[in-house]
């Protein structure tokens, strides 16, 4: 190919997705949706990693960025599993997955 994309394109996309994920964490009421937003954030990080991997590729070939991304995918999978298990527990105990209702550790 002739020219690639602007280097910062993916980076800005990643930042955008990250911020959307933050908004989702803060603003969503359902616990499962909060977990979804966390996934969004993780994916934004993945994009970042892969983009930077390309940055170094020109000098010397490297796959470190992609390896990182793979690991993050794996970890995210495990984390989602455990997280949903917790949400399920929460639902069983309190009959609600509304994070606003889980405020017993308040003043």
């Amino acid at each position, binding site marked *: 190919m002739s020219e690639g994309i602007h280097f910062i394109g993916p980076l800005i996309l990643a930042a955008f997705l990250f911020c959307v994920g*933050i908004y989702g*964490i*803060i*603003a*969503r009421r359902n616990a499962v949706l*909060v977990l979804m937003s966390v996934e969004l954030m993780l994916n934004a990080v993945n994009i970042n990693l892969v983009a930077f991997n390309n940055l170094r590729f020109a000098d010397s070939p490297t796959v470190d960025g992609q390896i990182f991304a793979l690991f993050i995918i794996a970890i995210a999978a495990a984390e989602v599993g455990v997280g949903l298990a917790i949400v399920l527990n929460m639902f069983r105990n309190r009959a609600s997955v509304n*994070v*606003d209702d*889980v*405020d*017993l*550790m*308040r*003043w």
Partner: protein
Amino acid sequence: MEQLLDYAWLVALLPLAAAAIISAFGKLMPLKGSEVGIVAVFIAWLISIGITWHTFSNPGVVLERAFDWSPLGGGLTLELGMLVDGLTAMMFLLVTTVSLMVQLYSREYMHGEERFTYFFAMLSLFTFSMLLLVIANNTLQAIVGWELVGLCSFLLIGFYWHDKPNQDAANKAFMVTKFADVGLVVGVIILSAGVAATGIEKPFNIGTTMELSMNGTLSNGTIAFGALMIFLGAVGKSGQMPLHVWLPDAMAGPTPVSALIHAATMVTAGVFLVARLYPVYIQVAAVMHTVAIVGVITLFFAGFLALVQDDIKKVLAYSTVSQLGYMMAALGVGGYTAGIFHLFTHGFFKALLFLGSGSLIHAVHSNNMSEMGGMRKFMPITFVTFIIGSLALAGFPLTAGFFSKDEVLVAGELWAANGFVTGNLVLWLGLAGAFVTTFYMARSCFLIFWGEHRGAHHAHAEEHDVVPHGDDAHDEHHTDEHVTVGHHATPHESGWQITVPLVVLAAGALLVGLPGSFLWPADANNFESWTATHALEEASYPFISAPEDDHPASEAVGGAGVLAAPALAAEPGEHGDGGVHVLHGPPGFEPLLAGIAFAVFLAAAGLAWSIYGKGQPDDDPMFRMGPVTKALVAKYGLDTFGYRYIVVPVRDKLSPAASWSSNVVIDGIVRSAGGAAKRLADATYGTLDQKIIDGGVNGAAFSAAWWSDKLKRIQSGDVQRYAGALVAGVIVLVLVFAGAR
């Protein structure tokens, strides 16, 4: 014997120890404390005789010992000491003899009295006080003794305090003498200040004061002022006019008290003090004249008051006042020896008279002469001794009183020879006073011992005047011993404890005058050499220039021309010092003066016999003298004057004002200070403590609670908010790190 002088202080302390023992244990003793008192005074009497013997044989000997105390650590030294010389010895002998006789007498007179022990304790205490005054070597100690005798006098006059008049009499005595004591204290202060100004450490010492007065260190003004102020104290204590008013009222006390205190000892304290400080008094003419005039007034006017009395003790009281006037007047005209000689003899015969009157009162249970009469049949010993005493008082030749009174008149004559009119006053008014004295004593004797006994005519409780009858308590006491009616008609002689003192004192009244008389060998030690203090031996009056040698002072203007005997003139050899000497030398016999005195005696006695020889007349001429009688009965209006112009204003104006200033002003200040302190405390508590400090403390807690209430909302339990805060922090960190690059 010389070492005995070192123990002179024992004479004073033995009665004090006796007083203490009697107070503590008297009631438990078999004789109720009287044995302790009598033994103590007896031993003191023996020591006094020893001291007398030694000082008489060695004239001019003087012993001074003192404990020094410097409260300020130097600069001012106070002394507690004794000054033993002939004057001291004379007073010792007088006080211990009379005290011993009175204590023995009191054993019978106060027998059965409930407060017998207290009486004896007070007698011993008084004896100690008087001896403390006599033995003092410094004026401060003299003041202490002076005040103590005043206290004992108060307590003893008010012995029968259950009756109000007796309390009043005690109060009057105390207040009048206390008023005069202001003068005493002021005088002592002035003299001691004068002495201290020269840098001497012991300004109160009598010897030092006398020395500085004589060598001119103290100014005449200091001397005059100090001496006159001290004389004011003497006026009160020795009953000179016008402060004599307490003495007649003091007869409310028991008769032994009157004999001891108000005849022989306490009232002579003033005369004694002037005599002791004589070198001070002779420096300024004005002082001498003042003393003389006061004495003359007293001796003349007091005698008349005795003419209208019915109470025998009142007669004797006024007689005492008059005789004190003689002593003071003698001192005022340069008759140092005469004055204290008269003091000495008067002590004996006046005590004798009082004790004798006590014996009479004891027999008839009344003080009034109108209830006596014909007593010579019932009480022979009392009669004889009383007559002897009266003769001595009147100056019958060869009694002690004769010699001493003669000396007084001679002193007046010699003084007149120096050109002073006070000497003439003493001489002529003294003779006139002798007439009055003889008259009233003769009147009294005739009323008491001659005529019919009037006791049976009067009921037991009838009284003629409202003067306090201290002995009435004594009367009631004996009611159970005598059947009331009928038995009183026959009084009987008193027991030996009363009559023996009478006899002893009568002997004294006859014999103690001899050492001062012209019958005594002229070259032997006599009364004058015995009592002349060391300072006076060479003293002379600074205000009299020496007369020329060929005119002996004996031939003086205005004198009776009596004094031709050279023995009485100052020895020519001594004129060389440039002044008239104080001491007159041994007395000589002057027939003219003695003759005049005897004539006066006969005239007065004869007049009295003519009126009273048959007993009490129906109309006593004394009471028919119109305005004179009125004045005499009213005691010259002095008591009324004192009451209206002194007692009432003080009681009704000064005392309420003083108590107002204390209760309203001073207490008001104190109370308002207290109130202010309380208000300040309340304000401090309310504002400072409650509002500010507690407000601060509470406010700290409150603000902590308020802040925590506000800040706790951060922990909302909302996890998403936590996440938001976290991300915000991340943003900040990113900015920080980016900015750092």
